């Protein structure tokens, strides 16, 4: 379980509604409005994309929208920074291979 249940200082985290989204064809749950990357992390997803040149896996690195390492294909659009893009019901999130979907 990656979500923090009881935090000694922050107590609980006010999250929105639980929503369903799609990750590489699988149906996953996450909280509406939280970064896509957080919802993926809660579901144990580490790999967001594979690089163009060496096909190496990448995931969250800076978590604040600067490094662009965590980009994925979201609702068909590639290069979406999942650490700063809010999750919404029914979103389609796909692992990015280079610049596109897996061929």
């Amino acid at each position: 379980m990656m979500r923090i249940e009881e935090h000694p200082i922050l107590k609980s985290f006010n999250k929105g509604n639980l929503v369903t989204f799609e990750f590489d064809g699988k149906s996953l749950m996450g909280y509406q409005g939280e970064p896509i990357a957080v919802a993926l992390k809660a579901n144990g997803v580490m790999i967001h994309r594979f690089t163009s040149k060496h096909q190496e896996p990448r995931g969250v690195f800076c978590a604040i929208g600067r490094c662009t390492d965590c980009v994925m294909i979201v609702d068909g659009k590639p290069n979406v920074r999942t650490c700063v893009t809010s999750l919404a019901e029914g979103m389609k999130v796909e692992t990015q291979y280079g610049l596109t979907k897996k061929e």
Partner: protein
Amino acid sequence: MNKITDRTFTGEEFVSHRDDSVIICRCEEISKGEIRRAVYDGMRTMSEVKRYVRAGMGLCQGQTCSRLVKNIIAKELGLKPGEVEIPTPRSPARPVSMEIYANDGMKK
């Protein structure tokens, strides 16, 4: 800045380092060795290295690797990091879609 620099090629051979394969520019997947090689080929500033091998030219616009690239160049040239010329950042500070740009100035 812009210290007078004679860039004459000395003719010495390029020496590989053990950690040359470590990736420095994460976006463009440019290794330390490629950056060192660029310096060997005569590139002495961040812009020249960037234009020659694309280090720092990817999606994040060098936000992650600039400091690392600068340090590598400095080390290769025997300079202090502060002596390496750095490029001027350009708008947009974060990626912005063409559509958003195109709408700018079009509606009240």
